[in-house]
């Protein structure tokens, strides 16, 4: 058991790229910008060290798309790196080279929210079905199924 990570340690580690706040007893959130996200994750990863990625969660808040990178290490404190992206052009640098498991999460987020991860080695469809139209992202808050669009499955005239 290593010593627990304190808010001061996180704030010191991400000095200059974002601000840290304690949201719960063992959760610390680091707010940063899309330009600094790689630097913040690298510092949290190497300095603290939070060497495991739990998940990347995504929230569509109707004003912006938030990405939360949840990282954890031996110290059992979850450090969340949060970044907000504009809804009309959500683009961010990939972290799949720093944290290899992030590659799969990024493909899923690309499918469901349309976030483009620059530098991702293979940003292809992962979870949606094969016939899904490529420009629709079903977990966005403003998405409604269009009755004229074919989303895959079986066409009713084929069933007969």
């Amino acid at each position, binding site marked *: 058991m290593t010593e627990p990570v304190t808010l001061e340690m996180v704030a010191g580690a991400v000095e200059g790229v974002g601000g840290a706040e304690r949201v719960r007893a063992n959760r610390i959130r680091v707010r940063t910008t899309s330009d600094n996200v790689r630097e913040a994750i690298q510092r949290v990863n190497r300095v603290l060290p939070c060497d495991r990625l739990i998940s990347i969660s995504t929230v569509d808040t109707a004003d912006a798309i938030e990405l939360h990178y949840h990282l954890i290490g031996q110290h059992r404190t979850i450090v969340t790196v949060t970044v907000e992206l504009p809804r009309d052009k959500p683009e961010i640098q990939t972290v799949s080279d720093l944290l290899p498991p992030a590659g799969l999460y990024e493909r899923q987020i690309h499918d469901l929210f349309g976030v483009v991860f620059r530098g991702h080695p293979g940003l292809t469809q992962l979870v949606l079905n094969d016939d899904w139209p490529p420009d629709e992202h079903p977990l966005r808050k403003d998405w409604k199924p269009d009755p004229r669009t074919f989303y895959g*499955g079986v066409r009713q005239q084929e069933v007969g």
Partner: protein
Amino acid sequence: MTGPSPTLSRRLLNWARGKSPWVTIFNSGSCNACDIEILACLMPRFDVERFGILARGSPRHADILIVTGAVTRQQAPRLRRVWEQIPEPKYVIAMGACGAGGGVFQGLYHMEGSVERVVPVDVFVAGCPPRPDEIINAVVTCLGLMAEDAAHGGRAWRMGTAPVPGAEAST
């Protein structure tokens, strides 16, 4: 019995089919609870093999297709293809609330919905998940339909596309 009397081989076939309905199980995107109940059916406690009901891996060997769960868009063409491979006469049982109308998955972006949107269903089983007794009951109901269809020379009389001979006797 209407129409020309069936040949001996046809009558023998119908008799044998009713004595041993072979089922194939297709998971079209369920939460696996229905599959576990089907497995419970096959295990010694309920032991459907005493009725001659046998689970087959291949749809080409089966008489009855048991579909578990709501149909996802990815699975829908596959379900259709599996159903097309079953030789006639074939029967479809849709299991659970999901098979009937999508259940808790109704209206999601990746859901086709009811099994009936993809293949014609003969028996719906209620429950989430249905108990093994209800699954056995559904298969036995299918056997009743099978006998009636054999007497009417096909399933067209139930679909409302053919004139119904002796409707009051069959219902």
